[in-house]
């Protein structure tokens, strides 16, 4: 698809970007003395309609999800290639798949856990899980569903649902990028998978997981060979930090190493990988054409929701502003 095909969509996205929360909003929320005051600051943002509801019920997850849901619906309606929006929404589709599989397996009702975001409606996913086939869904979904079904039939291990679908999610993401066929999108998706693999390895080492576990959970769709990452699994956090600093992700790893213990700190890796991905996305702000602004905006929205949730949760539990600030993710805007 021609880069210019996105011209009108990108103009709309530029307008939407002006509505994103700025650093100033977060600072004001952080310096608010209590939860109510912090919520009040959302009154001059697109979240204004639900402010009173949140103050009464403290259910800010609902407010954030409503806004998120609307943003996705809107983008699906005007972005020329739905696959592009799907790259961001796929995580929610896979979450829904997991919930539906668990429902199907245990017979319980987990419908409250479903998140109504995604290219295909939840009912379609449910039907596909039930019958194992679908005329509407992409074949990648069916492949994922079949793989989980096979595992469940053989081993009856429900936890495998999460692990297989996480791995399939990354494969699916890569296929989507290939379908879009834009080199920048490919690069971003690969980068995203690499960052997730880095975070997975550091967490697995910290939890002393076996190499077998790493083999099942790591994705082979990234640019760092999976074999090398699995090998890393038997090292300790100090050695793993040293080895990873020699890869192209040196700057992220070096910032994630604890200065006192010299160990790779998984909490910092999570933060640094989020920030590194955001930095990559920030390039999109300067692009007038092509698919990047859509991806950039959606990621910005995701981080915005994450940051608001963090600040509100922090305020609700009376955490000091400093402790919240150090966990906050990089903002898309200035």
């Amino acid at each position, binding site marked *: 698809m021609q880069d210019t095909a996105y011209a009108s969509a990108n103009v709309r996205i530029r307008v939407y970007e002006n509505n994103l929360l700025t650093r100033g909003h977060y600072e004001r929320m952080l310096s608010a003395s209590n939860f109510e005051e912090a919520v009040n600051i959302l009154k001059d943002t697109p979240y204004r309609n639900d402010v009173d509801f949140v103050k009464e019920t403290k259910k800010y997850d609902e407010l954030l999800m409503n806004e998120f849901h609307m943003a996705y619906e809107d983008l699906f309606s005007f972005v020329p290639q739905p696959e592009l929006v799907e790259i961001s929404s796929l995580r929610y589709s896979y979450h829904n798949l997991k*919930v539906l599989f*668990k429902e199907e397996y245990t017979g319980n009702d987990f419908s409250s856990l479903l998140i109504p975001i995604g290219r295909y409606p939840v009912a379609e996913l449910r039907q596909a899980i039930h019958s194992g086939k679908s005329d509407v869904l992409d074949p990648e979904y069916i492949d994922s569903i079949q793989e989980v079904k096979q595992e469940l039939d053989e081993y009856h291990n429900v936890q495998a649902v*999460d692990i297989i679908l996480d791995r399939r*999610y990354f494969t699916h993401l890569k296929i989507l990028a290939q379908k879009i066929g834009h080199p920048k999108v490919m690069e971003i998706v690969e980068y995203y998978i690499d960052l*997730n693999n880095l*975070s997975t390895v550091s967490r697995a080492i910290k939890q002393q997981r076996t190499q077998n*576990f790493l083999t099942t959970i790591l994705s082979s769709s990234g640019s760092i060979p999976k074999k090398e990452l699995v090998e890393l699994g038997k090292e300790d956090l100090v050695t793993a930090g040293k080895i990873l600093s020699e890869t192209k992700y040196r700057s992220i790893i070096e910032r994630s190493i604890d200065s006192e213990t010299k160990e790779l700190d*998984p909490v910092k890796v999570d933060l640094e990988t989020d920030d590194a991905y955001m930095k990559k996305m920030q390039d999109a702000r300067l692009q007038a054409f092509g698919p990047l602004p859509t991806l950039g905006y959606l990621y910005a929205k995701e981080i915005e929701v994450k940051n608001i949730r*963090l600040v509100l949760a922090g305020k609700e539990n009376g955490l000091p502003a400093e402790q919240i600030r150090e966990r906050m993710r990089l903002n898309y805007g200035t």
Partner: protein
Amino acid sequence: MAKLNVNPTRMELANLKDRLQLATRGHKLLKDKQDELMRQFISLIRKNNELRTEVEKKLTDAMQSFMMAKSLLHESFIEELMAVPEHEVKLDMGQRNIMSVRVPTMNFRYDENTDPKNLQYGYLNSNSELDTSLAELTDVMPDLLELSEIEKTCQLMADEIEKTRRRVNALEYRTIPQLKETVYFIQMKLDESERAAITRLMKVKDMG
């Protein structure tokens, strides 16, 4: 102190003396039981206090890191991860006898092949702070169980101590003094009537 409302007869005196002896023996036994219960209770309470502080600290830490993890993740993500429990845990309940107080003993029983510390869940929709909080929560479980066992034991023992103390006090300050006084009263009464009989006899002799 009120004496018992009984007839001052020899038969009653013998009865009361028997009762007094029984009450004194019972009092001594109950007093011993109370002392032993108290001794055990105090050491348990001390342990309970230490354990509670420890468990509360661990729980606060775990809840704090859970709050941190939760603030960065969608709630449905976390609930989905834990929607179907991976391990089955059974709780075995037994009974132990401390000075005839039946206190519970509790133990977790896991399947042979499961390691409670090795929870498997997807990494995509979780973060390392969640890992930490889950590890901390798993860690605190055995202590929490022990704490509940000790707290229940303390509660049951406190009830028993209260009951025993009431009995000891009733015996010490009511039954025994009452019995003693009544025995004394009957004794006096009997002595008095004996003296009266002797005087009467002497008077009758004089008249003769």
